[in-house]
């Protein structure tokens, strides 16, 4: 699941759940996502390499003010874990054992080839699929000292 924030109305929605694709001439094979609230089209940059490259060259659209999952959080972003969305219980248990638990502050180190987060003095590498299921809320940088 990739959470996307609509750039027009601000609605947050699941980009991997197709909405309106059956009536679209692109037939759902594109990397665009339509907002269920206003229908505005947003590029899912996580699914499109060229879009990601161009977006990077033009600026840093990934540095959004409100990150929603660890996978959405920009590099060096510090966020607080708020939950595990539809994650298998054994994966949750494993992440919790490494210290990645609700209420904990984590720093995102990198996303490619795997997402690496820092919690306390531990660096944990996890697959992007898992990272996209860890919901987070932004914290201010002064909280980073809690790491």
């Amino acid at each position, binding site marked *: 699941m990739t959470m996307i924030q609509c750039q027009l109305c601000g609605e947050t929605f699941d980009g991997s759940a197709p909405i309106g694709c059956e009536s679209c001439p692109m037939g759902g094979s594109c990397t665009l996502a339509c907002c269920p609230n206003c229908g505005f089209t947003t590029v899912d940059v996580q699914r499109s390499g060229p879009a990601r490259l161009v977006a990077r060259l033009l600026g840093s659209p990934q540095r959004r003010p409100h990150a929603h999952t660890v996978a959405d959080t920009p590099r060096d972003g510090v966020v607080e874990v708020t939950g595990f969305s539809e994650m298998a219980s054994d994966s949750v248990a494993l992440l919790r054992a490494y*210290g990645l638990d609700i209420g904990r502050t984590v720093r995102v180190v990198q996303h490619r080839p795997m997402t690496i987060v820092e919690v306390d*003095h531990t660096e944990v*590498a996890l697959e992007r699929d898992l990272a996209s299921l860890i919901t987070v809320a932004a914290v201010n940088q002064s909280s980073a000292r809690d790491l």
Partner: protein
Amino acid sequence: MIQCAIVHHESVSSPKAPNLVCDESILLVGHPNVGKSTLFEALTGSRVITANYPGTTVEVTRASGQRLGCDVIDSPGLLTLPSRGEDEQATVHILFQEPLRSIAQIGDAKNLRRTLLLTVELAEFEIPMVLALNMADEADQRGVELDVSRLSEKLGINVVGTTAHRKVGVPALESAMSAPRVPTCSVAYPLDVEEAVETVMALLPEGPVASKALALMWLTGDPVAERWVLDHAAEVDQPALLGIRSSAIGDGIHEARLAMAHVLTNDVTHSPGNVLSGARAKLGRVTTHPVAGLPFVALALVGLYWFVGLFGAGTLVDLMERQLFGEVINPRVITLVEQFIGFELVRDALIGEYGLWTMGITYAFGLILPIVATFFIAFGVLEDSGYLPRLAVLTNRAFRAMGLNGKAVVPMVLGLGCVTMATMTTRTLDSRRDRFLVTLLLALGVPCSAQLGVVLGMLGGTSFVALALWGSVVLGVLLVVGWVAARLMPGERSAFVTELPPMRLPAVRPIIVKTVARVEWYLREVVPLFLIGSALLFVLDATGLLASLVEASKPVVVGWLGLPPEAAAAFLMGFFRRDFGAAGLFVIASAGLMTSTQMVVAMTTITLFVPCVASVLVIAKERGWQVAAGVTGLVFPIAIGVGGVVSRVLGAVGWGS
């Protein structure tokens, strides 16, 4: 600043270790990669192979702790309860089955919260404990300040700061271990959890561990507790027990434990310290970068090729096999045997073409030993530097194609040292499916150090293209078989999560010690098999059966694989150990009896053979005889089939003839 290494003296109540002999043992428990094995070595003087990546200790190791007056058990890493994977369950089994004098929990001083989560879980077993906060030097470097005395007071057990690799704090830990105490801390669970625990305790018979610990393990779905309940099915009301379990209760238990670990951590932490920075941190980052990390992979591979393939298999083998054995030792042994042994048959058995000395001992010590020793040194450097988990991160995508995840990189790379040893480490993988797939791929196409050295020496000496062809075919077979097997195997691929330990400059002493220990282990296994292999070949040769077998295998070896008839005997040796067979092929190639094409075909085929008799036995031990038979039955036809196809393709394009 309050440093672990200083404060722990205050928290240790007993100054002297007793000289007692007891039937009970001390169990070392802790997260993976916190230095349990290093402390075990310091406490017992035993040479356990330790490494800077999670999951090294796959066998439960026991040794006498002379100064402690009883045995010490080194257990596989345990992240948390409930236990996951066979290695973690092995640790819980010890808690269930072993008469324990005490538990010594080894924790990471800089990651106190994680450490204390396990402490509060272990405290529920009501077994006397001590807590060693290891890697105190790293905690100090990062500015972590802990009040160890206060922590000791809060937990009701002795807490000691240690730096195991420098043996700092070990005497204090031994003193603490002589006076372990049952922890006085206990988790305040929510009311619904306490009620559930009470109900389960009433339904369960008396168990091997404290009844509350057993009840909590049942409620959180620990597989070892579940198995114990199944074993006592006659005494328990299983439907009633199952009815009490729920995810809400499980979450409640975990959250209460976590809250306690959190409160304790905050209470005793004066400074949480700073995250790792500087050159080590930067190096750690670069090695996992998708592009910048690739030169490090190339560097590791080129370094391995240079050190093992050129220096070990070239320079050292030349020195040992040709100069030492060929010109100094063997002529003297042959003269002695010819002088003192009159029976021709016995003489041939010792110094003939398939003689115990001229083939078995010479191959084992002159050819294989230098290759194995150099590989183990190189592997030790990779392990201790903390690079292996980073390699797992970089290669995760490739393993994903085979339906696996990067966690498989540890057994796969270990397989380059010894497939038998690597097969044992598959128990660190999370699912039965992953364990089977990696076992199959290890048996099929991961060359062990001895064989790799022979391959690098033989094909590397021929041409880089020959080596690249061999590597591409073997890798291609691994990918295809892995891809197909992953789709045929039931179950889903496990998601990959791993800890990345800090990059460290490997110390010389531990690498030498572990290389010696590994070489000792290898020689103990390989020399008898080489001797048995030589003896069997001698018997087959003396009875004329070898000639018949070679004749019978000619349609395959000569007709299908396109190899010289002499290669048939080498392939027969390959049934015992594929490196033994590869060594035989090396000798044939060195005599100028093979073309480049034949060398690639021969090395590809023998690489895809089952590694050795020992590895088949270990597969049977770990995964059962059915799996061992299935893997063996699958691997040989694939090896022969692929070898023949490679022979025809290379012949058709006219390469290397």
